[in-house]
């Protein structure tokens, strides 16, 4: 009996190793594709050059900012968005039924006057209480509506906006002044086919930020945000660029993305009642375009930078990661017909195949390995090579991939300020794989459990605010 259990455990261990090797083969493929893509597109042009080239022909953009209880930071965030370098944009702030003084602060600071606006009720959302326009900032519109969540608020913003493109931005994020100019580039170069573009989101903890502007880029001083810096680099500079090359980007971060309004309205806007509304929207767009046999592009470009504050405590980070996992599973479930379905082309086979391996099965396999291998090693049931192969899968390949992503960043973008910072991040690439990634896998299992229990909680997301940076 004991022998049978051991044999079964060994075979399970082998399965864990081979699934791990398969996952990392995909990641290495991402790294190669991302490297090719970045080498092909070359280094980004300076802002002045972009300005010269586009200033006369850029399409109007509506910047949508959903806000809930943001009275402490909203004025600074809005001021920074109003000052962004773009010749033709309006900012629409959606006050999603805040229970604090967000609306009062806005009324006072921006001299808001109630107005009316002809808008389409195409995407569903909670009722709008009032629409305001600033007397001295002609490009600012404030929508006050009944609370309904982020997706609901964004839908209201999409309905009220009139520009052909809209950009969704989190109220607590900071955009680089030229972020819109850079993100609009694919819409300028391929206006007929491009329907959505995502840009890089980076960790702002530690940087010097004043009045909604990043004055000096610095690395976070605390370990947890530092580890997330490496994680974000891997996610944005490797995975998404690689998928962009194959037109299979499945997620554009809710913190910063540019979309064609008519394409989003075609799919009914954001889906309400989901925690992963950003991924869900992009998958819906893919599905709609493929089912209607339309030629389209969803792009990710590495350069535009949106700065966001990363969680600094384990509990907040755990809540965030659990929620992300739930969002991914919800989207996968809702569109499971696309998974590995050749009818949906590369999106179905590669994109959804990757979600299946990495996000659906991945955490379970990781958790099995984390429990199984220490037991097998302690009981002396596996060989030295068996154990080392597991360590390679658990941490070794991950280190190489993380360092590879950082190398890509340095080769193409060079946004890490100093050589010493690069060296520190290299160390973090190694450290990240010795406990942090495994912890993440356990949080993702928690996400699985919450998903199966149909939990709808968003968890608490405590932010310290940029002014303390």
């Amino acid at each position: 009996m004991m022998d049978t259990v051991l044999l079964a455990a060994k075979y399970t261990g082998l399965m864990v190793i081979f699934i791990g090797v398969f996952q990392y083969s995909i990641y290495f493929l991402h790294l190669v594709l991302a490297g090719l893509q970045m080498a092909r597109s070359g280094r980004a042009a300076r802002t002045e050059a972009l300005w010269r080239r586009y200033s006369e022909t850029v399409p109007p953009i509506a910047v949508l900012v959903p806000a809930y209880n943001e009275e402490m930071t909203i004025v600074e965030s809005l001021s920074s968005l109003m000052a962004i370098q773009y010749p033709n944009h309006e900012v629409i702030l959606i006050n999603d039924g805040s229970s604090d003084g967000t609306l009062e602060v806005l009324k006072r600071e921006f001299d808001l006057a109630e107005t009316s606006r002809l808008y389409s009720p195409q995407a569903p959302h909670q009722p709008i209480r009032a629409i305001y326009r600033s007397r001295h900032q002609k490009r600012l519109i404030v929508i006050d509506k009944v609370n309904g969540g982020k997706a609901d608020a964004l839908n209201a913003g999409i309905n009220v906006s009139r520009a052909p493109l809209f950009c969704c931005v989190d109220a607590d994020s900071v955009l680089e002044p030229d972020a819109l100019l850079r993100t609009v580039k694919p819409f300028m170069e391929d206006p007929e086919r491009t329907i959505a573009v995502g840009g890089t989101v980076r960790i702002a903890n530690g940087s010097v930020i004043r009045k909604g502007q990043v004055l000096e880029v610095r690395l976070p001083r605390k370990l947890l945000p530092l580890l997330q810096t490496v994680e974000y680099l891997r996610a944005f500079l490797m995975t998404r660029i690689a998928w962009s090359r194959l037109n299979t980007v499945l997620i554009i971060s809710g913190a910063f993305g540019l979309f064609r309004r008519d394409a989003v309205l075609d799919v009914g806007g954001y889906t309400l009642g989901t925690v992963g509304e950003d991924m869900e929207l992009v998958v819906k767009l893919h599905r709609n375009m493929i089912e209607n046999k339309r030629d389209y592009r969803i792009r990710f470009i590495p350069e535009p930078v949106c700065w966001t504050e990363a969680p600094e405590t384990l509990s907040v980070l755990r809540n965030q990661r659990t929620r992300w996992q739930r969002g991914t599973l919800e989207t996968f479930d809702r569109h499971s017909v696309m998974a590995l379905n050749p009818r949906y082309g590369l999106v179905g086979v590669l994109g959804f195949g990757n979600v299946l391996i990495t996000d659906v099965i991945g955490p379970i396999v990781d958790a099995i390995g984390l429990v199984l291998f220490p037991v097998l090693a302690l009981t002396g049931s596996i060989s030295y090579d068996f154990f080392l192969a597991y360590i390679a899968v658990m941490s070794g390949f991950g280190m190489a991939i993380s360092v590879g992503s950082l190398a890509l960043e340095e080769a193409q973008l060079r946004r890490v300020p100093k050589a010493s910072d690069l060296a520190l991040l290299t160390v973090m690439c190694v450290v990240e794989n010795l406990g942090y990634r495994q912890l993440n896998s356990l949080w993702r299992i928690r996400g699985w459990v919450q998903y199966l229990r149909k939990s709808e909680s968003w968890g608490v997301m405590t932010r310290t605010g940029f002014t303390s940076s």
Partner: protein
Amino acid sequence: MNYLVIIWQVAFVLIVLSLVWMATLVLLRIVRTQKKVYFSHLRQKITEAMAAILWDETGQAVIEDRSLWKSQMVPEVFLDFVALVRGEERDRLVRRLERNRVDDDMRRLLRHPRKFVRFAALEALAYFPGLPTAKSVDSLIERSLSPELRVAGMRTLVEIKSYPAVPDVMAEITKLNGGSRSLHAVLSKLALHRLRDVLAYLDRPDITDIERAALLRALGSSADYAVMDRLTYALEHGSAMIRAAALEGLARLEHPEAAPPIARCLKDNDWSVRAGAVRALREMSFDGYADDIAALLSDPAWMVQFEAAQALSQMGATGRNLLEVSARAIGNETASRTASLALAELSAAEALQ
């Protein structure tokens, strides 16, 4: 060898390789930081040299340090500098740089291995018209594999009034699935300055719908009323994309007799054509079709309702009256809602002023 051994050994090798790669990049960064200081100094020197040439009172200043002007940074610094000087000063700067053969150096940079240097050189050369520039840019367009560079080259050719051939521009539009917005701007200039070539291309029997639509849109910028017949004829085309493009062209052309054919499109089967027709009438300020436009306040397509409300809002008293009538209309909820919101917006805008 056991496959488990291969797995951990491969991982080990990859870790070592990636760390070596990263260590090299860190060292390179240290070197680059030094180079950055050098380039910043060089930029400063070029800027100062340009200022010296521009404000030299004798007008005979000769560039002594030729090596400075061969730098890859010259076009970029020139573009930044030229953005700060206007009119006569700008002309003087360009003339003096030409006399010192700086434009020759920039033309040579069109063969530079770095794309952004070629790009800056292309843009800068737009200030140095003439046969040598046209030839160099033509040659770059021919050999470049980058669509971005080819389009930038075409823009430069248009700016120096050495217009690219219509078939070349159309080939680029086809390659780029309808083309970039910059390319459409090039085509509009061709319609203005090379109308005969554009019309000849439009007469080809084998052109695609994408090409036809782009050409019709561009015809609107030709400022030649003779093209109205072609645009009007295209309004009968079977493809909605082409009908919408023809409407855009007519709106740009602003022919006083274009209103009746445009107004006929208010009853088109395709919503994008109906919306385009309302937009065209609004842009051309044709108020004679207010009743037909008001009827579209209850159109099934939101975009048509929106355009109709916008058009009526801009029509003054006539439009406002029609909006008020529609807002009060019983039994037509869509028109009533659209008109009410448009009126409320109009009043709010007036109150804000």
